[in-house]
């Protein structure tokens, strides 16, 4: 596990936070937190795109965000556990692991700028 992939995972974590925020935020404090989470997740998404192909980064970002939203709705918002959804999440995570295994780091293209 290298730090560029960790950046993608942290970006997806903050994506889950702002998706929850968009749905549940109700006052100045929670909206500010939501805005900060959007900023952090996109900042990390763009940074990781320097080292990992952007097509891969974006697919993993939306996929993990969706999977994370599924788990947080069950854990924190009393949504029922649905086996069909769980199957998709496992299939999705298998795809993410596969992508990580077949992706070679590329040198930073923006390094000389």
């Amino acid at each position, binding site marked *: 596990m290298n730090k560029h992939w960790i950046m993608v995972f942290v970006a997806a974590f903050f994506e889950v936070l702002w998706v929850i925020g968009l749905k549940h935020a109700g006052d100045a404090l929670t909206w500010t937190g939501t805005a900060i989470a959007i900023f952090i997740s996109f900042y990390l998404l763009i940074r990781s795109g320097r080292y990992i192909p952007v097509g891969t980064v974006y697919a993993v970002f939306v996929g993990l965000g969706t999977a994370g939203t599924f788990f947080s709705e069950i854990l924190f918002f009393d949504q029922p556990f649905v086996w069909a959804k769980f199957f998709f999440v496992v299939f999705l995570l298998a795809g993410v692991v596969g*992508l990580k295994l077949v992706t070679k780091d590329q040198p930073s293209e923006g390094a000389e700028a």
Partner: protein
Amino acid sequence: MAWTFLIIAGLFEMFGVAMISQVNKKRNWVSVALLIGGFGASFLFLAFAMESLPMGTAYAVWTGIGAAGGALLGMFLFGESKDWKRIVFIAMVLSATVGLKLIS
């Protein structure tokens, strides 16, 4: 009309994903502004589409167009790997994401 809005939203999302590559190549305010404008326009048209389409359907189609289109643009415009294993795994992640959003 809602479907037209949704497709436009997906195209702006593809554009936004392509601009992530562009920002990393040319670090200037124009590419950052295009990136923010692309995702901004995309969210706006997604919101228009959701006024008449079910949220799960709209979200699933939007994600699918943006992520698949973004990966294809990456391969053809930015020289990303066209390795079949990469394509298979991206397709896995995408189909599972779209499936999850459709049944949510």
